[in-house]
């Protein structure tokens, strides 16, 4: 059995697919077994190779995107429509056919009501009930991979931090880790601690924003008003301590670009105190508001079987029983020295996804206190030696595990592939909405909060 064939059978036996991508005449496959990451590349004979998605449906969109590049052809790809390249398929896009009496379609997007990223949703409904949702994405495709090819490490690091702005810290960390693995260097312990402080602040800020936004879509803006105040406090503290509200470009390969002094540590400690004091009241407010509970309970259920099959990460996966968190399972520093729980629920509805965020905020506050009180003294950055190498990383962002693989040649990026957690979550949203009413879509969509920009690349 070839190594490729072996890898596929491991995937069928329970290993989790991380990504599939092309680089010239090579096709790459990455997966994880428990917390250890594996990678394999093979040459495609005559630019063809047997499609991974013929056996792993979660790879369908990845391979459609791979095929869009026009270099490699995955043989036996179950869905041969283009994905990220819109002009490759001509108009109109061939949405999947739905047949049945009395069905009607509602096309929505790419421009939505509100301040939201663009994407198109095609609902097919029977009365109020959604019988099928099909998403069409790629509207914010900027070809980040193309821009990274041949770029200097510093430029590529900045690009990585702008793939999905809400996860800029996690992306920058994934990029830095991949560079550091490729070059076999370890950043100073102080830098690693500061990275974790930023990453947890990012998680808390986003979860607060999401909880508020979901409740708002459930017709309860009071929660959003209060969550938004706490979120703003986090961003202001981040701005004053790290110099940027979203902490963009603060993590750099080899370490961090911003340091904390005692005064800033006090600012952050006070912030944690304030959230810890105010957040429980908001949780009670959520829990005791019957009209809101009525909207979130039993809405948008994602079955644990499907979450597992797609290897869905993050809140979406863990609210449906998929017990994986890269911080604990891949166990990268400094999380290896911290103790924290990874909350997992199994109901898989909007309510479960809200509760998971609540519990994760509580854990993150604990982690922040821990990291802030144990920051080692020392340098915040180390040298990047001009060497060649290949490296990959899996970093837990607020949305789930971000996978990044890269190859360095003569001090420049030869190729960099990034897989946002949304790749395995968007298809599940289509499954979760089935049988719900159209009016509950915003609620379901917000509770998934997949990234358009991260997915489109």
């Amino acid at each position, binding site marked *: 059995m070839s190594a490729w064939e072996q890898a596929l059978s491991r995937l069928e036996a329970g290993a989790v697919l991380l990504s599939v991508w092309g680089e010239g005449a090579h096709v790459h496959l990455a997966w994880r077994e428990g917390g250890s990451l594996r990678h394999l590349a093979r040459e495609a004979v005559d630019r063809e190779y047997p499609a991974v998605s013929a056996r792993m449906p979660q790879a369908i969109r990845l391979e459609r995107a791979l095929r869009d590049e026009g270099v490699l052809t995955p043989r036996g790809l179950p869905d041969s429509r283009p994905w990220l390249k*819109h*002009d490759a398929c001509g108009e109109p896009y061939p949405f999947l056919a739905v047949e049945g009496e009395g069905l009607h379609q509602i096309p929505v997007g*790419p*421009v939505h*009501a*509100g*301040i*939201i*990223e*663009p994407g198109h949703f095609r609902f097919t409904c029977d009365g109020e009930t959604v019988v099928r949702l099909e998403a069409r994405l*790629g*509207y*914010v*495709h*900027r*070809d*980040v991979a*193309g*821009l990274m090819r041949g770029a200097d490490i510093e*430029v590529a690091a*900045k*690009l990585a931090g*702008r*793939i*999905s*702005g*809400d996860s*800029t810290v996690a992306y920058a960390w994934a990029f830095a880790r991949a560079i550091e693995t490729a070059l076999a260097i370890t950043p100073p312990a102080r830098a690693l601690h500061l990275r974790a402080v930023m990453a947890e602040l990012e998680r808390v800020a986003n979860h607060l*924003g999401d909880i508020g936004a979901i409740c708002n879509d459930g017709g309860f803006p*009071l929660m959003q*008003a*209060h969550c*938004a*105040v706490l*979120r*703003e406090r986090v*961003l202001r503290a981040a*701005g004053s301590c790290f110099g940027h*509200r*979203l902490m*963009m470009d603060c993590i750099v390969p080899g370490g961090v670009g911003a340091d904390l002094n005692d005064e800033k540590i006090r600012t952050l400690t006070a912030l944690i105190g304030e959230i810890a004091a105010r957040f429980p*009241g908001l949780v009670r*407010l959520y829990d*005791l*508001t019957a009209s809101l509970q009525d909207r979130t309970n039993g809405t948008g259920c994602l079955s644990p079987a499907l979450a597992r099959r797609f290897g869905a990460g993050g809140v979406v996966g863990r609210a449906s029983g998929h017990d994986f968190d890269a911080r604990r399972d891949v166990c990268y520093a400094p999380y290896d020295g911290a103790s924290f729980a990874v909350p997992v629920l199994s109901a898989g509805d909007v309510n479960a996804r809200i509760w998971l965020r609540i519990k994760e905020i509580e854990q993150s506050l604990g982690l922040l206190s821990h990291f802030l009180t144990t920051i080692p003294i020392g340098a915040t950055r180390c040298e990047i030696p001009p060497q060649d190498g290949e490296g990959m990383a899996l970093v837990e962002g607020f949305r789930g595990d971000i996978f990044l693989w890269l190859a360095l040649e003569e001090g420049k990026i030869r190729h960099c592939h990034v897989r946002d957690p949304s790749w395995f979550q968007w298809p599940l949203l289509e499954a979760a909405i089935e049988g719900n009413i159209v009016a509950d879509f915003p609620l379901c969509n917000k509770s998934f909060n997949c*990234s*358009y*920009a991260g997915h489109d690349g």
Partner: protein
Amino acid sequence: MRKTIFQGILHRPLSEPPPPIAGDEVISLARALDRASQRQLGRGLAIRAVDAGSCNGCELEMHALGNAFYDLERFGLRFVASPRHADVLAVTGPVTRHMREALLRSYAAMPRPNWVVAIGACARDGGMFAKSPVCEGGVGAVLPVDLWIHGCPPTPRDLLSGLLTLLPQ
């Protein structure tokens, strides 16, 4: 819930005074704002946001304008759901090829007179994505821009001071 609402009444509001009118480091005006249009549009502006390829960082900060600290609506500025109701088109991102058409259609659906505001480094000239073959290189390449608000992303304070320049002083 009653307790939460009650506290809201008892406490001082969090809203902060408006930032000073933006300087050059925050905004650039394409040309002096047309006073006649400004009078016609008046003190209340409806804004339609279009993401034309943003990383979503700019969106996050636009969202923040609605929180209690900035409270955009007290200045007569509000985000609306349809371009048909909008006086201002707020565009983010380098304008990807795939969003070009949707952006042009959103603009065409707006009543006149109107303003186009390009938000962030990407909207200004494509930013980090300027060299991408699938991006247009900023909003100016597609629409006549009246006001640029700088930053990556601009802070809510910068956004607010930029948007306030559109109102008659």
